[in-house]
């Protein structure tokens, strides 16, 4: 169950609207940090799904670039810490 974080760059002023659109994708939570940057968390069932999801984020209106920051790909079982 990979968990990743991304910084998403948008055109000036587009971040809030892009955050909303990106956040509507399944397995994604996002928030706008300022008017051009989003922090996005993705959760997928398998690493094979990561790339497709990130490409969908790239295609959201106003998005200029998607930069992967953190990528955890361990076999994740839900364990209480």
């Amino acid at each position, binding site marked *: *169950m990979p*968990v*990743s*974080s*991304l*910084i998403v*760059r948008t055109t000036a002023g587009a971040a809030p609207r892009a955050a909303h659109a990106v956040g509507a994708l399944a397995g994604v939570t996002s928030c706008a*940090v300022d008017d*051009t*940057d989003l*922090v*996005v*968390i993705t*959760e997928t069932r398998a*690493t*094979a799904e*990561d*790339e*497709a999801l990130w*490409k969908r984020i790239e295609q959201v209106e106003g998005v200029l*670039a998607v*930069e*992967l*920051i*953190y*990528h*955890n*790909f*361990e076999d*994740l*079982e*839900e*364990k*209480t*810490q």
Partner: protein
Amino acid sequence: MTPTTRRDFLIRSAQLAALAALGARTAGAQSGLLTALPDGLTWQKAPCRFCGVGCGVLVGLRDGRVVAVQGDPKSGVSRGLLCAKGYHAGALLYGKDRLTHPMIRRNGRLEKATWDEAVDLIADKIMADPKRFGIYGSGQWTIGEGYVNLKFAKGGLGSNHIDPNARLCMASAVVGFVTTFGVDEPSGCYDDIDECDTVITWGNNWAEMHPVLFSRFADRKKATGEGGPTYIDLATRRTRSTELADHYLEFVPQTDLAIANCICQQLIARGTFDKSFVLKHVRFKANDGGDLTLEQFDAFLQDYTPAKVAKYSGLSVEQLGMLADVFGDPGRRVLSLWCMGMNQHTRGTWINNLVYNVHLLAGKIGKPGSTPFSLTGQPSACGTCREVGTLAHALPGGRVVTEPAHRKECEDLWNAIPGAIPEKPGFHTMAMFEALAKGDLAGMWVQVTNPAQSIPHLHKNLANAADRFVVVSDIYPTVTTEIASVVLPSAGWVEKNGVFGNSERRTQQWFKMVDPPGEARDDVWQVLAVAHRMYEKGFPGLRDRNGNFLLAVRDDDGKEVEAWKWEVFDGPFNVDRALFEEYRGLTVKKHKDLAPYDEYTKQPGMRWPVTRDASGQWRETKRRFVEGEDPYVAAGKGIQFYGAKAGDDRAIVWARPYEPPPEVPDAEYPFWLCTGRVLEHWHTGTMTRRIPQLLGAMPRAYVELNPKDAERLGVLTGDVVRVRSRRGQIDLAAWVDGRAVPQEGSVFVPFFDETRLINRVTLDACCPMSKEPDYKKCAVRLEKVSS
């Protein structure tokens, strides 16, 4: 959120990582946040395994496996960023077909063997004909791996037949540096990206090849907007880099030689060159090495007026004038970047010289933001190949085998028999494969590289290789292991200790973090084991002056450690540290000083020369040759090119002419072919094709066409097109209007795909000075095979 599950922890960690990376970049700060992520993983630093940028990676470990990767915000190179390849670096270790045991070819088939059998066989084969055995290595060798191989070959076998695959990527840069400045490697650094007013890329698609550096500039350009830095993309193909460019200047292949001369011609004609800099720091030479005056150099340049160059370069008089405007503006800080577009060139050395000419005439070197900067493609092409000196003519620390004093210094440090190192350079890469084909070499040990895919003109240069004794050390099966007599399974990246040196002279260390799979073992151990077996069998070259093992590894007290035994090598003693400390003693002569190994364990890296300051602290050097930055520049000099062979502290401006390429499109083969890399894959794809995300994003090689050519040929994206040259042919799917657009009359094919070997088609013509082949220009024809 109060984390309650492991998943919650990871989500929280991911958020913190992104916020820290944003903070590190927007504030230029180096946040310590990430080393304390609450995700229950152990995090350790390493440089990225892939390209020459040298990004800092934090590797997340759990239960003896790499399970997470993030950018290291403390890295002065990447500041928390990584590219698509870097983020998946952990997965390169876990492909399903890792090599896990030695194999020996028997009756035509590779069969499982023991380490003892393999080591014994290799030792016997080398001893049978040591002078006809070559070692073909890599810019992906760690410094320890390169050093031990060099000492084994040059000190032990008495053979200079050792050369790396870096010959194929940066040899022209080396000869360019040495002929202009007298010493190798850049004077500038990545900080110049943050301080320049204009970037010019010379045939370099850094958005895909060096993406983190590109992002560093793109961030700055975006943040500053109008009035910020400008970008000129001087290229033969529109790429992702072009999307950021203020000016895209498309030139005819090979005419970069004429364009550089044209800039110089205009600087002198307009009087906008930096006269005081030239008077103090430059001298002029003719192509044959004779001295020239400025006036004579100007006379040479009269063949390169804008009107003349515009006739064949593809650039207009106005575009050529604009380039001269940029370099002639005394207040403008200009950064030139290049990589394979200039180095893989039948006049690769000359074009390197010519770009230095432009910067030297303009006085745009040695100032923050103003420098010519040669990028590299492999993670330690600089650290291992150029600094350690794993080239056929070289010795460590900038020494060469042709200098008696240099050979003696190495022999003395190694306590080798005087005269052990031959004075004649060995076979360079292209000659090495030709020798293997002809039988002049009886065998070869290939480490960390895949020549059966990467050597140009494969039919010719790999002919008969399968009939020779070829040993291949690698982590995965490749097309090269298919022709091997012996295959040795290697440890990869963080499965071993290592040190890399990147493009900006930065040396970066990492510790072993996880065990290699099965029986896979470090390449350093493999060499030590074979060398010691030869010593045990009485091979004289591996005895030092006292009869002891030449490649002995010693602890801090000088006591020998039995590092050829795997259980010792794999124990607590750090062999990599011992090798680094021995090598470090050879780095001072040419002012490439390194700090002690232990200093590199404390931080992401330091740029050499690294010397102690008055307070006893080890201090790196951002810019060489610059007073106040480089400790070897004398007070009052300002700029001092202290490597100058004439001893006059001057760099050389060379009168290098335009020369047409050896093969140009004609009626029979009407297209230029250019080859290269893509964002998702690295070199021959041995690692990146095992990473599902990267393979999924770019599964196969393709042929990229200009839309006008495609329309004329009736080719659509996805159609199968045969690319044929005088040397061979392959069939590829067409890509039109894709990620990049080659100029009309040219095509591009990436070389990562082992199922579609473009090097059956490429030409093996080389730069006669650097011996680096030109993968960027040959003539092909296209035939549509099917829709």
